[in-house]
């Protein structure tokens, strides 16, 4: 998926979104994956969760998804154009968007449970 296509996708959303940039070769992403699954299970009805797999190959990415059972939507971004457009640095990155695709905050690097829960809570207070 290109950055333009991704922006259009976010703009069409009628609810907030958490976008996590990951890769199968990224060790911290392994620690984040169970947290993202827990967040999706807890808030998947109120918030859109989207994974962006960057600089990866599809077999390894599919094995990663199967290992962690990540149940939300993922898009493939071989050239890293999506996080680059959003000025994200490194991998992993977690972006928090209001409904309509407005970027609220960016967490560069691994996010812990408190940070993820806080980012989600902020989104829920923006869009009650």
């Amino acid at each position, binding site marked *: 998926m290109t950055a333009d296509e991704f922006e259009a996708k976010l703009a069409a959303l009628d609810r907030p979104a958490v976008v996590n940039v990951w890769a199968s070769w990224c060790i*911290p992403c392994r620690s984040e994956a*169970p947290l993202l699954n827990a967040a999706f299970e807890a808030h998947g009805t109120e918030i859109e969760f989207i994974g962006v797999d960057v600089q990866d190959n599809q077999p390894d990415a599919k094995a990663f998804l199967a290992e962690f059972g990540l149940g939300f939507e993922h898009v493939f971004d071989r050239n890293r154009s999506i996080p680059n457009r959003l000025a994200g640095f490194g991998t992993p990155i977690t972006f928090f968007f209001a409904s309509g695709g407005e970027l609220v905050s960016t967490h560069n*690097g691994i996010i*812990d*449970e408190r940070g993820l829960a*806080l980012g989600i809570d*902020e989104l829920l207070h923006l869009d009650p």
Partner: protein
Amino acid sequence: MEFTLLWAALTAAAVGWLGTRIWPEGLPDHPADRLLGAGAIGLLAGRITAMIAQGTNPLLHPGDILVVRGGVHSSGATIGALVAYMWSVRGELRCLDAITPAALLALAGWHGGCLWRGACLGTTSDLPWAFAEPGSVVSRHPVELYVALALTLAAWAVARLSFRPLLRSGLGLAAAGMVRLLTEPLRLSLTGGPTGWHIAAITVGLVAALAAPWFVTTRASPVT
């Protein structure tokens, strides 16, 4: 380990060292070294426990152990630190009681280190001392500072108890569990928090403190 987390760890170590200077009674030789060593082993044990709880095999993915920000299991860390410290003082219960106030203070320093990490805030609040994340208008409880303050008070109270074996350490463990249990509703969580472990810590601590009269001090002299 990211640098903000390292600052929190250094704060805990510095405050723990201060605790050994404020309450030196009954401590073994090199108490701060033993406390720091036990804390480091506890961190490792807590990280490995968290990995196993998250479904990651530490033997297959040893590199993940270094990703401390990925989660440290509080209970695994506590048990690991206690075992490491007791091994370092050869099982001498008196040394466990002696280090308890400093350990509680070190724990308070770790939670107070949220100021370096930008990770103090919990649920929303209208109280006058509540504050918001940068760029946000939503005021929140500084829950980690509440924990730091309560643990500091617990350290001070425990230091005033007598040296009956397991009394200080048992009540210190129970107090730490109680502080976490009472503040858990103010903490943002995706999984509900380790409430069961907090209750277990309170129970074990109180049983140990109540059973203290049945323990006999085997050695009064400091460990060399």
